């Protein structure tokens, strides 16, 4: 699977049917609401594609992860618009590794849950009594001699503040979108237009994705105009008054 194959990934979702890149274009044009997009459906389609016997292409997996995380962030923002994103510095390698590990572990647990359910079906005809027989002698529980120090240590345990557990692995971290908003606004106060691709060159993929989100925000607020000669050609950013939205050629499949 090559990088372009990720973009051409055929999707069949409730709200959208067609290739992945068309979906992204429609989102970019705000012709589609992010909240309507079934991200899990896209991941499933990708995983199905991944399981085909082609040679595994690391580049396309990376591309997919970046696109899907950008989409997720976009969707999360649409769902919780007022939630300020206070996100720390970014460690994309860690995030990718953790995401992969968690996806795999969760999938294994789902398999195990399915096995348990099946087992309930096959073992459901084994009936047994819960608890002692109706005419069993009454139970008498006796406890061996205990050490009072155990009580003291139990109370100390309860009185101890919770250890500082690192939660750094709990979320994929992104730089704040606001960082790029400011950067692009500054840039446009000096120049009337710039090329997005060359501006974000050298940044990590996730940073690029967040920069792209900032672009969407500015476009939505009417602060900028975007143009692109062809799908996946460089994106040109300009202040509204200086640019007529000329050749926005959405790819129509």
């Amino acid at each position, binding site marked *: 699977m090559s990088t372009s194959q990720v973009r051409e990934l055929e999707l069949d979702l409730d709200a959208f049917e067609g290739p992945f890149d068309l979906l992204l274009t429609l989102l970019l044009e705000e012709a589609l609401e992010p909240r309507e997009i079934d991200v899990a459906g896209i991941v499933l389609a990708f995983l199905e594609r991944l399981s085909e016997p082609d040679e595994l292409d690391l580049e396309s997996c990376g591309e997919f992860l970046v696109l899907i995380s950008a989409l997720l962030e976009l969707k999360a923002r649409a769902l919780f618009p007022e939630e300020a994103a206070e996100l720390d510095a970014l460690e994309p390698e860690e995030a990718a590794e953790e995401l992969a590990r968690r996806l795999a572990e969760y999938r294994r647990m789902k398999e195990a849950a399915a096995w348990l359910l099946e087992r309930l079906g096959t073992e459901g005809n084994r*009936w*047994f*009594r*819960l*608890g*002692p*027989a*109706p*005419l*069993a*002698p*009454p*139970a*008498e*529980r*006796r*406890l*061996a*001699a*205990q*050490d*009072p*120090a*155990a*009580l*003291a240590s*139990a*109370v*100390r*345990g*309860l*009185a*101890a*503040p*919770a250890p500082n557990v690192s939660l750094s692995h709990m979320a994929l971290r992104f730089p704040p979108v606001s960082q790029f908003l400011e950067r692009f606004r500054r840039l446009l106060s000096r120049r009337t237009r710039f090329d997005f691709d060359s501006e974000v060159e050298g940044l990590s993929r996730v940073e690029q994705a967040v920069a792209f989100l900032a672009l969407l925000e500015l476009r939505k607020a009417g602060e900028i105009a975007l143009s692109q000669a062809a799908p996946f050609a460089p994106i040109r950013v300009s202040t509204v008054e200086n640019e007529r939205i000329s050749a926005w050629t959405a790819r129509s499949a």
Partner: protein
Amino acid sequence: MDSTLRLIVSNPVDRLARTIEALLVVAAAPLSVADLADAAEDDPERIETALGLLRERYAEGRSGIVLEHVAGGYAFRAARESADACARIFERPVERGLSQAALETLAIVAYVGPCSRPEIARIRGVAADSAVASLIERGLIVEAGREHGPGGAVRYRTTPLFERVFGLESLAALPRLDDLGEADDLRRRLLDVASAKAS
């Protein structure tokens, strides 16, 4: 025995008897002839016939399982010759320790003083119902009035058995927790830590 088994397979009353065996071994209370008839979808007279067969098979001296007719109906019990063995399994002095849940609950009641289930649950951060129930069943704690008078939550305190099991002359002999403060201070402190953890 083999000839009997062949008979069972070919004889519907014996098949019914097997169903009754199954029902009685699962039942948590004696089953009446009517209960058995409902479950087996058979008529009470045939149930009685099958029960007659089973009373012979599960009779004192012939089997470790004995079929008994009591007020509520029929139930299996252990044979009398096995009474000692059963007593050993039911009163187990083998319980060497308490579960973490029971130990923490007991420690709270012992150190903080009479204390309700909701309070214990707040301090521990998890429901305390089964831990409290097991401590009551073991006789280590008992009810001691209600919070804020009648209508409040039931409070619990430790028992003399608790003191015996832990080798304490009285509650005053509990290991001291000087740094953590006495009953009321300790209660406040535990609740503070718990709410900090929950947030």
